[in-house]
């Protein structure tokens, strides 16, 4: 997997979408604009990495740190693959930040149909039965979930 980056390329997609016409900002023309949109790397305090054209990119230390934040054990091999793959993905998605920055007054969308917050009447209703909830637990004791130690020695 050493050469993963070569296969990871959205250029075909970018080319065809760019052929759609000259409206708005496009592809690689955005690169200079990105520096002002994406802040410097803050994920880890080690020396910043970047691609040849000045994009923020990920280091092995970043991936290790992110995996730890996500409580996700990964092997050294996985880490190295992800460093390459995620850097390329991040490079490809950077156009989004610039496109959004080009239209600063735009509102975000999260739903196709406008919704307001949903409430129900404040009445007592039966929930999931305790034994049913505990039936799938990896470990249970005295009607409760049994979990590993949560606090460290010093706490």
């Amino acid at each position, binding site marked *: 997997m050493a050469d993963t980056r070569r296969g990871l390329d959205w250029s075909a*997609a970018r080319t*065809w979408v760019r052929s759609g016409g000259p409206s708005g900002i*496009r592809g690689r023309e955005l690169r200079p604009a990105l520096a002002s949109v994406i802040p410097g790397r803050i*994920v880890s305090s080690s020396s910043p990495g970047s691609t040849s054209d000045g994009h923020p990119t990920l280091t092995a230390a970043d991936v290790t740190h992110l995996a730890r934040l996500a409580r996700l*054990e990964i092997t050294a091999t996985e880490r190295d693959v992800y460093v390459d793959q995620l850097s390329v993905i991040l490079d490809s998605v950077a156009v*989004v930040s610039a496109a959004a920055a080009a239209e600063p007054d735009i509102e*975000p969308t999260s739903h*196709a149909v406008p919704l307001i917050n949903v409430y129900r009447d404040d009445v007592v209703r039966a929930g999931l039965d305790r034994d049913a909830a505990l039936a799938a637990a990896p470990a249970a004791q005295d009607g409760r979930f049994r979990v590993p130690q949560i606090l460290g020695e010093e706490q």
Partner: protein
Amino acid sequence: MTSPVAPPSSGADDLTRRTAADLAAAIASGEVSAVEVTQAHLDRIKAVDADVHAFLHVSGESALEQAQAVDRARAAGEPAASPLAGVPLALKDIVTQQGVPTTAGSRILEGWIPPYSATVTRKLLDAGVVIVGKTNLDEFAMGSSTENSAYGPTRNPWDLTRIPGGSGGGSAAALAAFEAPLAIGTDTGGSIRQPAAVTGTVGAKPTYGGVSRYGVIALASSLDQVGPCARTVLDTALLHEAIAGHDRLDSTSIEDFAPRVVDAVHRGTTDGVRGLRIGVVKELSGEGYQPGVLESFTTAVRTLQDAGAEIVEVSCPNFEYALATYYLILPSECSSNLARFDAMRYGLRVTTDAAGAALVSAEEVMSATRGQGFGAEVKRRIILGTYALSAGYYDAYYGSAQKVRTLIKRDFERAYARADVLISPASPVTAFPLGEKVDDPMAMYLNDLATIPGSLAGIPAMSVPSGLASDTGLPVGLQIMGPALGEERIYQVAAAFEAAYAAQHGGLVPDLAPELEVAAR
């Protein structure tokens, strides 16, 4: 509508070849029993699923019990519970069914038995639909080929060396292999439409909020939608009506929205598309699309034109950003949603490290469990999402992506001012060989090029077979997209197209699927 032509090697009395509408009518009239119909499909699964691997779990016993209940009700003179009573259905294994294992295609949920049923499952059972099993999918619905399933890939019934699409490849393959006439899928970026396209079946993604997601394991909550899959447009519409509707248990569910899609199908079959304006999206064809797919699409456009539609070209320039926007929103939301798999309350718990030493703290157990329980694509997206949501990056990534969604939505709104529905190919390519893209995430992501814009805008969209590609001989899907709440329009156009195709070809695409070897098992 022209009747499908039965393939030469299967008798007209083969129950697995019939449509859901036809089977329901036969059961209601007493021509066959629901038990006979269910047994025929269970036999078919037994005969072909070792090769296809559409199912992760077959619920033979409970399916026959459900069928018996339908037969008993009929014998007692009760009216049918629904227009689909007694018809078998394959349920994507990300939708919970009480008492039946649900894995989401992941090791982390291996052996988990949900203590409750999804609203969709409950509605199906109330409608007398018979759930024959749970279908394979990419782990937590992340993928376009089912190769990310922890339990091995599903194979495309059209060519067992090729992918059935994803993430709902199991549901689509079950239909194409005649293992069930109905299936449930979920669509976040194309997981209903792309598998439908590459297996020659029909699949619809409703308007976001149109079908309850309660009890469906969440991937990306601002995108996920449950939808119906079948081999005909009418069957898809019947299933759509059975599952749609407001649910107080899903806060994103739309109130007072019950599209009459079955009526729309009848309208499409009788009145066609005369007077409708159909927009061809300029940005959803051309480079990146397989020649055979484009050829089939061009023929489909001509068919719709001949059927009386006015064809207009529309441009959606911001679709350029759709794929990149999606790959910021999806990892962000999934990294948050998948935090619930913490080894504490249900699912896998790993308590020793690689050397066999006991793990002490909850954090160590969590980390080891997630490391072993999740596959490569899931981990990749969790890490990417964790990055995109981290302090200082949120505005540049997730925040920007939600804004670009607005730009894409506006493109759609402008297009719908000129056209009643929009069309494009549903998948840029026909089914590709297993293993071809599995190590190349970006190449895999490109499979959802045509379906993602509709997902981001939350609009309804479906894939209906447009024929076989001349270069590969494999099925091609026509995507039909409507404005938000525009389900009836897309079903009308889909039904009109299907009828025109059947009139031209003397049958439907699923009937052309190769016979699977069923002997000597």
